[in-house]
C-alpha cells in the first residue's frame, strides 16, 4: 500500500470519488432494466413467476430465442408471426427510410442550393413546413390516403410516405452552403455539368454527413410506432416493435414474459448496435439534425 509520492491532496481525492459514484448510479439506472430483461429472456416462465425473479441468467436462452425467432405467434398466446419475419419487416422499413430519405433530401437540397429557378424558395418552404405536420396530427386522413392509393399493408405504404422530411434537407442545405464557390467555378471551367459536379465533388464531401444521418434515420425507421400501427394491420406486415407490444396486451393465456423480453431484446439490439458501432457519426448526427 505504498502511496506514490505525488499523492493528490485529500480534497481532490474526494472530488475524484463523487463523480464516479454518481455516474455509476446513472449507469446502473440505465443498465438495470436491460439486464433484467436479458435475464428474463433466459429463464423459463415458472422461474420468472417465483417472485423475486432470479437476477442471474438461466439456461433457457436458446429455447426462448429459438422459439421467438422461429415460431413467434403460437396460436392464442402470441398473435405474431415468427420474430425473424418481423425483424425483416423492421429492417426493410429502417433501411428504406434511411436510404430513401438521404437520397431525396440530398437531391432536393442540391437543387435548392446550386440553382436559381422560379419558385425556388416556395419549394423550400413547402419542404420546411412538413416539420409541422407529423403523422400524429393527421391520423385519420392518412389512412384514407394510403387506402386510396392501395398502399395499405405494403412495404411501399410503410416506407415511402416517411421518406419526405425537412430535417435531412435542411442539414444538407446547411452543409452545401459551406462548399467554397471556387470549387463550383473550377468545375464550370472544366466543363463539368451539375450532375458530374454532384457525383465527383459534392457526394464525396458529404460522406460524413450521410453517415451521421444514416444512423439517426435508421433509429427513426426502426423505432416507428404509430405509422406501422396504422398502415401495417396485417400480421405479416408487423414490425418487431409493434409485434412485441401485441405480445403484452393481447395475452389470451398467461403472458409469456420470457418471450416478450426475448423479443424486446431482439427489438432493441439492432438500433443499439448501430449506435455503439457508429458512435462518432451518431453524436454528429444528433447535433446536426437537431439544429
Amino acid at each position, binding site marked *: 500500500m505504498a502511496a506514490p509520492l505525488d499523492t493528490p491532496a485529500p480534497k481532490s481525492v474526494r472530488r475524484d470519488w463523487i463523480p464516479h459514484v454518481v455516474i455509476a448510479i446513472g449507469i446502473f439506472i440505465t443498465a438495470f432494466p436491460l439486464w433484467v430483461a436479458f435475464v428474463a429472456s433466459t429463464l423459463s416462465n415458472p422461474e420468472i*413467476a417465483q417472485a423475486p425473479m432470479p437476477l442471474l441468467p438461466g439456461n433457457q436462452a436458446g429455447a426462448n430465442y429459438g422459439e421467438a425467432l422461429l415460431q413467434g405467434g403460437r*396460436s*392464442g*398466446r402470441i*398473435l405474431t408471426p415468427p420474430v425473424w419475419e418481423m425483424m425483416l419487416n423492421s429492417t426493410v422499413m429502417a433501411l428504406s427510410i434511411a436510404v430513401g430519405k438521404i437520397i431525396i433530401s440530398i437531391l432536393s437540397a442540391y437543387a435548392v442550393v446550386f440553382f436559381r429557378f422560379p419558385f425556388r424558395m416556395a419549394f423550400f418552404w413547402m419542404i420546411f413546413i412538413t416539420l409541422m405536420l407529423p403523422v400524429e396530427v393527421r391520423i385519420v386522413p392518412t*389512412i*384514407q390516403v394510403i*387506402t*386510396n392509393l*392501395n*398502399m*395499405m*399493408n*405494403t*412495404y*411501399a405504404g410503410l416506407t415511402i410516405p416517411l421518406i419526405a422530411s425537412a430535417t435531412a434537407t435542411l442539414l444538407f442545405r446547411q452543409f452545401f452552403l459551406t462548399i467554397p464557390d471556387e470549387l463550383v467555378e473550377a468545375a464550370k471551367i472544366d466543363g463539368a455539368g451539375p450532375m458530374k459536379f454532384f457525383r465527383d465533388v459534392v457526394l464525396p464531401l458529404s460522406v460524413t454527413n450521410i453517415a451521421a444521418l444514416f444512423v439517426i434515420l435508421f433509429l427513426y425507421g426502426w423505432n416507428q410506432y404509430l405509422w406501422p*400501427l396504422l398502415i401495417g*394491420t*396485417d*400480421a*405479416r406486415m408487423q414490425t418487431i416493435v409493434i409485434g412485441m407490444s401485441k405480445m403484452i*396486451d*393481447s*395475452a*389470451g*393465456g*398467461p*403472458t409469456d414474459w420470457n418471450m416478450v423480453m426475448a423479443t424486446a431484446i431482439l427489438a432493441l439490439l439492432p438500433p443499439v448496435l448501430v449506435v455503439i458501432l457508429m458512435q462518432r457519426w451518431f453524436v454528429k448526427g444528433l447535433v446536426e439534425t437537431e439544429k
Partner: protein
Amino acid sequence: MHTRRTLLAAAAVAGLACSPALAQQARTPISMWIGVTGPAQEEIMRYAQEFNASQTQFEAKVEFRGQYPEQRAAAFAAFRAGNPPHIMQMFDAGTGDMFALPRATIPVSEVMQRAGVQFDPAGYIGPARGYYSRPDGTMNSLPFNVSTAVMFINDDIFTKAGLDPSKPPRTWPEVIAAANQIRERNAAECGFTTTWLAWTMLEQYSAIHDLPLSTEANGRGGLNAVLNFNDAPRARMIQTLVDASRNKAFQYGGRSNDANALFVAGTCAMLIQSSGGHAAIARDLKAKFSVAPMPFWPDVIAEPKNSIVGGASLWVFNAPNRSAEELRGVAQFLAFLARPETYVRFAKATGFLPATNAAFQTMQAEGFFQQNAGRDVPILQLTRGTPTANSSGYRFGRWTEIRDMYHEEVERALQGQQTAQAALDNTVRRGNDALRQFERSVGAAN
C-alpha cells in the same frame, strides 16, 4: 405484396372478359377480412382452403387485418376508397353501427336470394337470429362465431377451500361467499375476476336480470334511444365489485381478455369469460375446471332470463364495382361456412357455440356434450325461457366507445375516486352524448 396481388386479380378479371378459354381457369377472388386470432383464425383459414378445393369458379382469400377495431377502421377506409373486402367479420359491439348504415352492406338473406342459394334464417338459434336480423326477419349478417358469457371454476382451488366444485355458486351472494371463503382459507390469491367487463357486468347482466339498457327497446326501436341503465340494481353490481376488491375476493383484470391469464395461472378461482375462451382455458389451465352459468341476484329476478350473444358476424359490403358473379361467389362461400358440419367443427375446435339449431342437434346426437362436460352450459343459458325486449340484444351506434366509457368510469370507482352510482351516471351521460352525436351524423345517410 398486396398491390401485386390486386394487379394479378385485375389481370385475371380482364382475362375473364376477353378470353373465353381463360375464363374456365381464372377464378373470381372473394376477399374476407377477419379479426380473430388463435384457434378460431386457423379454423376459418382452413375452411377457405377447403372451399377453394371444392369448386373451380371462386377463390376465397381470408386475411387477418388486425384485431376487430383496427380491422374495422381499415375496412371502413377501404369502403370509402370504393374497394372494400367482399366480406368483413364485425364484432358484436359494431353491429349497431352497421344497422344504422344500411346502404353500406347487402343483407345476407338478400345475397343468398339473388344467387339462388338456399338459406333459412329460421334455422339459427333464437338469440343469434334476433341479434343480427331486422324486425321483418331479413338477416343482415351471418352469425359465425357466436358466444356468451359463462363462469369458469377452478375445481382444485374449490376443493382446497373446502367448497364443492360439483355445486358451483348460482347466485351473486353465493359467489361472494365462496370467494370470501377462498380468501379466508388462502386457497387462492383472488376469488373471482372477469374479462370484458362491460360485456359481462353490464350487457349480459342486464339481459339476465331483464333490465333495459335504454329506451326504444334497447335501441332496436330507433336511433333516438336514450341510455337509462344508471339504476340501483346495476349500481349494486359495481358496488359489489368495489367492496369485494378490498379483500381480493374480486380482482380487476383489465378491460379485455387479460383477466383470463389470472384464471389460467391459478391466481383467481373463478372467471367470468366468453364461452369462446373454453379451448384456450382447457389448453392452458393446469387444473380441473368446470363451467357454470352466469350468477344472478335472486332478489332482482327469481328465474334469470337468457343471456345474449357475443362474438362476431359476417357482413357483405355493397360497393359499386361488385359484379353479379362476385356476389354469387360470396353467397357460395357464406353458404359453405353456414353448413351445419362447418359450424359443428368450428364449435368443437374453439368453444364458440353452434350457431344453428341443426348444428346443435348434431352435436347432441353425437354425444358431444356428454363427453365434454360443461360445453352445453352456454347454449342452455342462451336459450332458456322466453326472451323479453331486454334479453333480445341491443342495437346502439358507437357502442365500442360506450363500452370503454363504462370501463373508465368503473375503473375510477374501483380506485375509490367515485361511487358506483356516479360511475353509472357518468357513463350514461357520456354515452348519451355519443348516441346523439351518432344519431345526427347518420341523419342524412338513410
